């Protein structure tokens, strides 16, 4: 955190100064470790073992926050008799179909009560594996029965609490030592601190970044942390939570308003041709009728009205048919395979640089070289724009410039100070940026580019039916300035939504399913409340409470801590004075506190929903997790996950270590590409070391925003690899000299940094060496400093829930000295692939 989110880390340092204890778990020793109370080195890819052992420690010693757990989680819920655990089936959950490599998730469900969902309604497993369906749970949880059978004594063998207890029983301090390389005293200290700092008076927070997500079990890493935090009562409370520190300014915004293939704004599913018919059928299959997600018809109809305006009517399903249908995985890496196969002809790349920034760069570049046309928009001439002129495949002789048919348009982009608009930062906070000056020359904002491109496309339309969705699209924004820049404020207001009176809406509960409201993204409804750009609010922090509600605007409804109803006990009283956040004011008959309460403001804690209640009316006054169909935090996930209802330890796709828990070595549901462009390292001794990648404070992603800057280039001029003194000695590596890192994908050279910051770990009774590489270099990109592409080494293997690639743990070999040049690179790779 100190390396990659340094200014955020000031708050950790401040907490430490006030008495907080800070633990840092990471394969490398960093500036964060230097400031932590305790640093625990871990083998990359083994975190579920560590977190699972903490869960086991809590359960075995009954250290859970029982009142919280009983009231706010599904611990007491009974699970179906058909469910079988990985502990019963040697690493597989019940429902595995080896033929398709997917799960039928129906046996994971709660014990049946009343009407059961049909096979086509069952979420998770096979259905969500098909198109990263779990992405849609970013706002609303999947459907489960709102009032399942429970055992509040937590003793029933099929209640979630007992299932967890059995599942995690083998996650012991010994296993942590054996698989993570963390000694028992270190684990004991962590376990003691985490449990002692949780409960009524205290909370513990976990902070993670892509070190947890870029794995074939990435979503399950986060799930493991969720289980621990729910058991300890650390969700929805100040000082608690599981905090994702994201790596790009508005990566949260580009997920909420997704430039992603499988979701629409506000985490509504893109309709799937195999699954959905018309609007009614789609809504029926996309979640339950209970909890706030029960209102999704209003969210979707308001979106369709925002996009197709007058043309969208009740009679035509509000133009639901104008939405194109997905039929499976159309994600980034599969799209690249489509480029190689020749089905993808034209490609827009805007502010991203896949030629050096994506895993397996060679496949990316082969794809780019097989396009008809490519549009690249960026600040500098990034490698994605110049691959045909100076890419590595030219050096190896695999391709020649004059053989590449791709037509390339490079359009210079406006910078963040040359346009106005909002970022949504990692804490769900929308912050409006004022424009400092106009862009010069041909530089333009993406807003300008897409708006004017859309206008030019609309001039070319015909009466043909295929043009109807573009013809009927609302595409008219006020323009201003010398460049005819469209108004970003007008776009933000469309995102916010407008009511029947033509005024900006204040909150998403005003949205209607009858077509009388418009809203471009329901979770952002309120950002333009009272016709005021709330994201532009700048009341200084020193003039506000620590919550700072008048700086920017957080979705939803300016709530700064999600699910904060859990900060009060079931009766609505703060768990302790020290941790008071929001509470029920019985006199005034409403919720109040330091933040906007994340529940219906007038709903008393004693409210019991009537049978068959709809949407939020189905939530009890004690239910804090209001986007879930049952209002509960899920320790066990009965529906919605692709690879199992519980996290379990699997080794990375490429690992030098055997899985001692099961004969099932890696996540059986992981997403692989078995094609020549996607080779994998063979198991065994050819690739003996663990390879992991990371960022440096002084650089940003693949370097296009940092290597061209003199200050930053000088601070970190060269690609290096961090190795331990022991590995250096074994291999004859010299500090400051060169090393060559090899996988079956690529050969990369780097300067050697021999350092005690990377420690050899004893894993499974033998020494495992880890090699660390920052991934900021590339051959061009306008960089004042250049270097080999670390991402070229990565395998194309994905988490099955969300299709994020495993780039934090794989295997490699290391050789002393510089890499070969030219075609000799291919010879070396050939030798490694042949074993």
């Amino acid at each position: 955190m100190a390396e990659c989110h340094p200014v955020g880390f000031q708050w950790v340092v401040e907490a430490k100064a006030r008495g907080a204890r800070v633990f840092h778990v990471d394969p490398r020793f960093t500036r964060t470790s230097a400031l932590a109370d305790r640093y625990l080195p871990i083998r990359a890819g083994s975190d579920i073992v560590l977190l699972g052992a903490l869960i086991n420690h809590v359960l075995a010693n009954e250290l859970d926050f029982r009142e919280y757990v009983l009231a706010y989680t599904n611990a007491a819920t009974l699970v179906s008799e058909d469910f079988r655990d990985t502990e019963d089936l040697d690493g597989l959950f019940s429902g595995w179909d080896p033929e398709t490599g997917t799960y039928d998730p129906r046996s994971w469900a709660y014990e049946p009560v009343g009407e059961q969902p049909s096979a086509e309604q069952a979420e998770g497993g096979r259905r969500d594996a098909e198109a990263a369906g779990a992405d849609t749970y970013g706002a609303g949880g999947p459907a489960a029965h709102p009032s399942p059978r429970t055992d509040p004594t937590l003793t029933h063998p099929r209640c979630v609490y007992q299932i967890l207890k059995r599942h995690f029983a083998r996650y012991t301090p010994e296993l942590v030592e054996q698989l993570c390389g963390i000694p028992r005293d270190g684990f004991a200290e962590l376990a003691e601190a985490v449990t002692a700092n949780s409960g009524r008076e205290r909370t513990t927070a976990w902070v993670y970044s892509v070190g947890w997500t870029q794995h074939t079990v990435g979503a399950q890493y986060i799930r493991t942390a969720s289980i621990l935090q729910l058991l300890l009562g650390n969700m929805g409370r100040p000082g608690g939570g599981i905090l994702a520190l994201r790596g790009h300014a508005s990566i949260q915004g580009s997920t909420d308003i997704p430039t992603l293939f499988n979701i629409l704004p506000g985490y509504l599913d893109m309709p799937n041709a195999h699954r959905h018919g018309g609007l009614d059928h789609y809504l029926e299959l996309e979640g339950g009728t209970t909890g706030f997600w029960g209102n999704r018809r209003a969210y979707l109809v308001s979106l369709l009205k925002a996009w197709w305006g007058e043309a969208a009517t009740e009679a035509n399903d509000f133009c639901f048919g104008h939405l194109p249908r997905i039929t499976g995985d159309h994600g980034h890496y599969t799209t690249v395979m489509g480029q190689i196969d020749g089905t993808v002809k034209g490609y827009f790349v805007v502010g991203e640089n896949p030629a050096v920034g994506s895993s397996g760069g060679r496949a990316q570049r082969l794809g780019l070289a097989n396009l008809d046309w490519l549009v690249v928009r960026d600040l500098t001439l990034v490698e994605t724009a110049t691959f045909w002129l100076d890419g590595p495949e030219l050096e190896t002789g695999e391709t020649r410039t004059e053989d590449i048919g791709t037509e390339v348009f490079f359009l210079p982009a406006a910078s963040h100070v040359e346009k106005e608009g909002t970022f949504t930062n990692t804490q769900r906070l929308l912050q409006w940026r004022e424009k400092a000056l106009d862009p010069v020359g041909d530089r333009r904002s993406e807003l300008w580019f897409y708006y004017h491109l859309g206008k030019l496309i609309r001039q070319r339309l015909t009466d043909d039916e295929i043009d109807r969705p573009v013809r009927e699209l609302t595409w008219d924004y006020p323009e201003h300035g010398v460049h005819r820049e469209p108004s970003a404020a007008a776009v933000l207001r469309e995102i916010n939504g407008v009511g029947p009176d033509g005024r900006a809406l204040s909150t998403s509960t005003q949205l209607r399913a009858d077509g009388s409201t418009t809203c471009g993204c329901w979770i952002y409804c309120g950002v333009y409340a009272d016709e005021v750009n709330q994201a532009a609010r700048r009341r200084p922090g020193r003039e506000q409470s620590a919550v700072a509600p008048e700086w920017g605007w957080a979705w939803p409804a300016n709530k700064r801590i999600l699910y904060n109803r859990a900060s009060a006990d079931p009766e609505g009283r703060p768990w302790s004075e020290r941790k008071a956040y929001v509470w029920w004011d019985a006199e005034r008959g409403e919720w109040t506190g330091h933040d906007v309460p994340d529940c219906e403001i007038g709903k008393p804690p004693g409210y019991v929903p009537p049978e068959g209640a709809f949407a939020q009316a189905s939530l009890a006054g004690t239910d804090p997790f209001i986007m879930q169909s049952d209002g509960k935090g899920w320790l066990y996930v009965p529906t919605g996950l692709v690879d199992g209802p519980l996290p379990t330890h699997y080794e990375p796709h490429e690992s030098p270590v055997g899985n001692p828990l099961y004969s099932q070595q890696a996540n059986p549901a992981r997403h692989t590409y078995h094609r020549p462009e996607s080779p994998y390292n063979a198991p065994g001794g050819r690739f003996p070391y663990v390879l992991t990648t990371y960022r440096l404070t002084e650089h940003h992603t693949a370097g296009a925003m940092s290597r061209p800057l003199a200050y930053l280039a000088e601070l970190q001029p060269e690609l290096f690899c961090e190795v331990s003194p022991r590995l250096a000695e074994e291999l004859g590596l010299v500090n400051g000299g060169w090393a060559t890192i090899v996988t079956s994908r690529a050969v990369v050279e780097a300067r050697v940094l021999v350092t005690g910051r990377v420690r050899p770990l004893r894993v499974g009774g033998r020494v495992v060496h880890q090699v660390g590489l920052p991934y900021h270099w590339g051959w061009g990109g306008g960089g004042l400093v250049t270097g080999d592409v670390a991402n070229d080494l990565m395998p194309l293997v994905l988490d099955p829930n969300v299709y994020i690639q495993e780039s934090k743990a794989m295997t490699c070999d290391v050789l002393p000295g510089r890499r070969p040049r030219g075609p000799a690179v291919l010879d070396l790779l050939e030798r490694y692939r042949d074993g």
Partner: protein
Amino acid sequence: MSGRGWLARWPVIRQLRGQDGRSDAVRSPRTDALRPRTEDAATVARSICPYCAVGCGQLVYVEDGKVTQIEGDPDSPISRGRLCPKGSASKQLVTHPGRQTQVLYRRPYGTGWERLDLDTAMEMIADRVVRTRRETWEETHEGKVVRRTMGIASLGGATLDDEENYLMKKLYTALGAVQVENQARI
């Protein structure tokens, strides 16, 4: 400061005598006469750092149509005026000489860049979108209505604004382009 001679007021001497080297002891008439370059700025825009997702406040100082400095915004409750090495260097991000100002074009099988004016480039790109969309239009797939094109794809968004992502998703969806992705997948 006392009225003793220049030697006694020399900062080195004062620091050797034990005065705090981070405070008044480093001041001299010359440093007292220095003015911050932000003082003469014609305008100051309130902005947000474009690198990681912490969202630190930035103040962008502009003079004579040029960015003269970018500093941390002390009003921000997130950053309290602080910026990291990247945020502190972001004036270079917007002013460095490697930033492109012109549209460049590489024709199929071409061996070098050519110039193209922006309007022409926009027309050419619009032509290609319309043509490729028509040529690759898929009305049905395995017997199901899909009304889409698998011939056009897009990548990028996490470094852009919400409003920009919104127009991208809206336009692509209307065009039937479904292979739209960004850094969040990474």
